[in-house]
């Protein structure tokens, strides 16, 4: 589904990604871990088309199409979804208005008919029930005045409504207490399917107790330096990132 080949990117003349290689197949869950500043969020930003990042080298194919050549909205249309680390507040636009605009934009991109108000409401209510979202959420302005946990759950809710093929979760656990994290993880797990791939970016192993990955990759200084199964996350939790960094330094010398 997703093939990243030798991806280099920079922000304001600073090289952040220095040759990422990664293949993600449908149905798989990949965790990307790494210390602060290793390039995790930059990777998420590059994949979704944030213009602050400049790709200097490499290629990203999504179901055979050149992802880097597309506008952010086209990527969403193709089925790429980013759950933001810091969801943006949009005062004056209700969640329901926003979601309907979003759903219909994506449907239009895919050549499907737009949903009318009744059909949209039916879909949204069903998803809200699945994720135990409060009823008043739809009437509130997008993320305005939401708690940290509510914002993250709202991201997962949008994900459920849009039914993307590839879900990228950027530090979805950050700033959440254990109950809120569990609620978010339950939501994500409910959306796992053989047709859908997930890339879970996280600093800590604890989220991976709830969203169990098929693969764990360690990102350091803009490269994937180690790949393993879910046990690798436990190893990192026990020993931290330093041994891997030291190993790299040793290998380099």
């Amino acid at each position, binding site marked *: 589904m997703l093939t990243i080949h030798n991806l280099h990117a920079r922000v304001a003349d600073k090289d952040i990604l220095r040759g990422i290689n990664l293949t993600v197949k449908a149905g798989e869950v990949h965790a990307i871990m790494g210390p602060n500043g290793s390039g995790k969020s930059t990777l998420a930003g590059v994949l*979704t088309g944030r213009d602050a990042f400049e790709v200097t080298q490499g290629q990203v194919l999504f179901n055979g199409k050149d992802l880097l050549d597309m506008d952010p*909205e086209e990527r*969403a249309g193709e089925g790429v979804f980013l759950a933001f680390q810091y969801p*943006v507040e*949009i005062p004056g636009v209700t969640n329901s208005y926003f979601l309907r*605009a*979003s759903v219909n934009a994506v449907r239009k991109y895919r050549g499907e008919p737009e949903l009318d108000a009744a059909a949209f409401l039916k879909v949204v209510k069903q998803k809200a029930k699945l994720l135990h979202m409060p009823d008043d959420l739809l009437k509130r302005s997008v993320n305005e005045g939401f708690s940290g946990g509510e914002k993250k759950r709202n991201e997962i809710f*949008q994900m459920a409504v*849009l039914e993307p093929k590839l879900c990228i979760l950027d530090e979805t656990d950050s700033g959440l207490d254990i109950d809120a994290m569990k609620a978010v993880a339950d939501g994500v797990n409910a959306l796992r399917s053989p047709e859908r791939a997930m890339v879970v970016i996280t600093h800590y192993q604890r989220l991976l107790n709830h969203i169990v990955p098929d693969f764990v990759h360690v990102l350091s200084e803009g490269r994937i330096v180690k790949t393993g199964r879910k046990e690798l996350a436990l190893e990192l939790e026990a020993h931290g990132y330093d041994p891997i960094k030291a190993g790299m330094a040793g290998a380099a010398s």
Partner: protein
Amino acid sequence: MDKANFTNLFEPFDARATRRYQHLRQAARTCFAALAIPTARFEDWRFTNVAPIMQTPFVLPSVARMSAPRGPSEGLRFLVRNGQFAPHWCRVPNGAHIGSLASANTDLPALGQIADESGNVFTALNSSLLADGALVVIPDGMVLDQPIEITFNAVAGDRAAICNSRTLIVVGKNAHVTVVERYVGDGSYFTNAVTEIALSEGAVLDHVKLQQESTAAYHIANTQIAMAAKSVFTSHYVSLGGALVRNEVRVRFDGEYAEATVNGLYMAQGKQHIDNFTVIDHAQPNCASHELYKGILDGQAHGVFNGKIFVRKDAQKTDAKQTNKVLLLSDDATINTKPQLEIFADDVKCTHGATIGQLDAAQLFYLQSRGIGLEQARRLLTFAFANDIVNRIKIEAVRDELESRIVR
């Protein structure tokens, strides 16, 4: 610049007008003759050039013969065409008077007494051509749930005409009423509008003005409000049309414990120029004013906001708040914003603020990442900015109309 283009109209105007308001016209013409035409050297007119108006030889609009509509209109809807109040067929509530100034069957001592003819050349011009207009008189204690809607329609002739629109609203003690003024038209013309509002003790007026003039039109409006004790005035003035627009709003507190909410939304594109000039005169203690104006400027549009608040020496315990927020959608749009507070009392609460910004890049990206194209995302965020004002309008039909107009 001289005023001959306008003074030349006085004689032909009198020839066809009734004598009823001749004394008011004469007094106003004396003011008009004495007043200077504003230029950029006038502090209050620094950013708005009225030369295009003064240099155009406007004609008097043709006198239309208007027949009454065949059936009753839905709600309290009235029409003023080229300054003339049209026959109507509405069931006006008993005791209220809604109709034309020309045919009012009572004396109107407030007419010409609230608007400041001696200090405003366009107001003096309006009174110089005063013969008709809209009149709303709500008696003491009457509560009208249904909004009164008055449409001022400029019907273009062969040559650009001056549409002299005049309105007087008198609300009795503890009476409640909602009035919507709507300005529409086609082609080139000059609407010179004056609205006088007198609120008696405890009166409540919800006032909405929708300025949807043709994009070739000039629109100069002066709305002056005199507020007695404990009266409540709420206004939402929305400016969408016009090539050159100036909206003046002047609120004067004549009694204590009165409250004024003065809100506005202006949206301009192309080469439109929209100037909002507001004066809130806290002449009495214990009054509150809240003012929020929001502007959205695109293309090469030019917006002006000038908000004056006077707090006189005896006006203790005044609570005044003023905010102007502007969204610039293009590199060539301009805003001049100027809050002006003059406070002579010492126990007051006064705040003001102005912000000027562009659409937020993080919000745009968030919408795009959800599949919404850049253009639609911009419209959605612009709508959200405007919606802050639109949402405060109490009449649902007006809210819906504005929403669909802004989102398009």
